[in-house]
């Protein structure tokens, strides 16, 4: 078994730390553990929260305790530390028109590619849902190609529309709320991450794979109009 550290958090959680440096292999180990725990949840477990290098297990302190949860998770480690996770492939549609992609020109000059080349590089990559955070439905998608990796902008822009497709460093994100952001805005999506489907309220599970598909303006408008009605 590889190194793992358990931190007992307050009266209601255990943080399982699998490493310290982000890597695809480590994130995959976190997701494998997450699946193993949820396939046979220990008594009193409330939920797990997978992230890049660790996982939080929240429990009901009236039913169980830190030691029992830690022991149950240790057993799962021994049982299953192999096997590749193949997440479901999800498609997210993007319109890259200038007024929906206010930073496309700046990205294009910063990475020394034409705007079309930036779009194609973005479209040709496959992304993985590493974790959610920041706000409901904000899924951090790893896999931005090295040629497009840029630091955050120095100042955040306010009131960026929901559905904006953002990049910063190796991460890509499709926003679900009107929010400020310091990431580069390279397009707008018509695909809803908050689906309004009570059986499947979020489009992605952690570990899913994502591909972007280009749509033209009329398709974008038709689809967003449908959503508004």
């Amino acid at each position: 078994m590889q190194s793992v550290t358990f931190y007992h958090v307050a009266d209601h959680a255990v943080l399982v730390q699998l490493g310290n440096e982000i890597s695809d292999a480590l994130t995959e180990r976190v997701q494998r553990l997450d699946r193993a725990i949820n396939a046979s949840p220990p008594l009193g477990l409330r939920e797990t929260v997978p992230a890049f290098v660790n996982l939080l297990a929240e429990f009901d302190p009236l039913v169980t305790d830190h030691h029992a949860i830690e022991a149950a998770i240790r057993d799962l480690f021994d049982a299953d530390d192999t096997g590749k996770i193949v997440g479901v492939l999800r498609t997210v549609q993007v319109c890259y028109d200038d007024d929906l992609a206010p930073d496309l020109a700046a990205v294009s000059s910063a990475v020394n590619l034409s705007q079309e080349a930036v779009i194609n590089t973005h479209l040709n990559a496959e992304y993985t849902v590493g974790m959610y955070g920041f706000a409901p439905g904000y899924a951090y998608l790893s896999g931005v190609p090295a040629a497009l990796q840029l630091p955050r902008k120095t100042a955040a822009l306010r009131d960026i529309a929901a559905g904006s497709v953002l990049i910063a460093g190796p991460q890509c994100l499709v926003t679900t709320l009107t929010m400020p952001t310091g990431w580069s805005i390279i397009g707008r999506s018509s695909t809803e991450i908050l689906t309004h489907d009570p059986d499947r309220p979020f489009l992605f599970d952690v570990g899913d794979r994502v591909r972007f598909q280009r749509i033209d303006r009329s398709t974008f408008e038709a689809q967003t109009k449908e959503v508004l009605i």
Partner: protein
Amino acid sequence: MTVASLRVTFAGPFVTYQDAGRAGKLRFGVPASGPMDRLSHAAANVALGNPAHSTAIEVSVGGLAMTCTTGAVTLAVAGGNFLVDRARETLDGWSVFTLSQGETLTIRVGQSGSWCYLAFAGSVDAPQWLGQTATHSTSGFGGGQLKSGQDILINDAQVREDRLGAIERPKFISTDMNIHAVRGPQDRFFTADSIQTFQSNDYALTSAFDRMGVRLSGPKLELAGALSIPSEPITRGSVQVAGDGVPTVLLADHQTTGGYPKIATLQTDDLDKLSQKRTGDRVRFICVSADDALQMTRKIAKKRTDYLSSLAEPKGSLNQRLMRVNLISGAIDAISDSDPN
């Protein structure tokens, strides 16, 4: 079905609908939300005979005023010590009373407390998100924030004479400055001096205080070196420290992941105790082991269950209560008559 309608005539900021919250969605970036003071929310509900998790209005220090425009309904207020005026009559801040057509209710900030709960004998017609009415304040999802001019609709509205009167306050919750916390999960990133500083100095709540979190002021907490921690899960009650050395306690609408180190995480009941404090109030963090924090939670949970069960008992009809008062005053008279003092 009997309907009561109440028109909001004034609503301060951060006045929202809250049921007990939508637990279990942290992995999708969704905190549970729900009441900042979970016990007071439950107390207001059970004092009316409602299930503890029912939808109520969380009133901030900004206050709330309303007029009953249709029908009549019995309401309960609990949490902190707010000033409650019903039809120009001043009530205790923990009370059950009835509001009828044409009567007004005003809830204003009182001598202590940042949040109180207004519950209704009936079913509050509030929008749901993911099956709950709890409002996530940053998105507005769920029941939402109350605004002047808005109507609050109560379906199956009831007048409950058997519930009227004062609500007993929970005596097992102290209001002193001590807040129990468990160190970590990233205390290893702080200097030994900072850990000591955190436990041996007072910190005050600042005005940067909303449902997401509250920034504290006090001695700075230094990190043991420049850090870049990968974004990781956050739980309610985390004390995170940004690069400026200032601690922030994360509350009901916290972000679910983040990259700032957490020096400590508060015990559940003491988190709600801290949430009820006001800007300028001082706290002292008492660090205990995770095992001790859990034992503390279990002990309080027993008292909480007994307390809520006793509030859930109806007080009886008006006649029954009058009779009880007469009997008691009669008995007291009898005692005083024979009392040599």
